[in-house]
């Protein structure tokens, strides 16, 4: 079952913050976040496993609420390099990784 992402698109000015949400109707074992730039393959950002952990590096972090079956990606003090399409992927135990429809993020100067 495909996770649902919101918003579909967002435009930010450099230095602004953004939150991208991902939810599922099925119990989740792990949530993955990827960023894809135009003409390139998706690039892994982070993975969150069942247990409610929060991860982050640099100014990008994420949380995973397994009870609500939701994950959020937090982008703080956005930079031009953050532009791209963000995908959340989810699986339940041994099931394959299925992606949401993506959130297009544009950071402008």
């Amino acid at each position, binding site marked *: 079952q495909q996770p649902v992402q919101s918003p579909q698109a967002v435009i930010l000015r450099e230095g602004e913050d953004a939150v991208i949400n991902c939810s599922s109707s099925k119990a989740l074992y792990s949530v993955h976040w990827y960023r894809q730039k135009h003409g*390139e393959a*998706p690039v892994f950002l982070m993975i969150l496993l069942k247990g409610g952990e929060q991860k982050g590096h640099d100014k990008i972090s994420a949380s995973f609420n397994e009870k609500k079956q939701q994950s959020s990606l937090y982008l703080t003090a956005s930079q031009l390099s953050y532009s791209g399409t963000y995908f959340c992927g989810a699986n339940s135990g041994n*099931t394959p*990784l*299925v992606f949401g429809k993506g959130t297009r993020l544009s950071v402008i100067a």
Partner: protein
Amino acid sequence: DTAVSQTPKYLVTQMGNDKSIKCEQNLGHDTMYWYKQDSKKFLKIMFSYNNKELIINETVPNRFSPKSPDKAHLNLHINSLELGDSAVYFCASSQVGAGNTEAFFGQGTRLTVV
């Protein structure tokens, strides 16, 4: 060393032809995938192979057939190509279940059917 490699990178072909895209991973992962990304940029899962067993097969036409000669390879064969098959196809691999890892993607194959 490239973790997931797929060939070719570009493929232009006429309607009605049969073509294959190859994918190989050297990560020792037990699961490989094929995703289709259309002009709207949706990453739609097409197939997944876990230890050579097909474990998910979305509503894709049976003109598409995955072939996995071993755990490190998952090729995609497409018969009777149609205009609507034009898209970017990504191969990926990961470890699911215990030891769950991120998915590593190949560079993508841009298929154009004319």
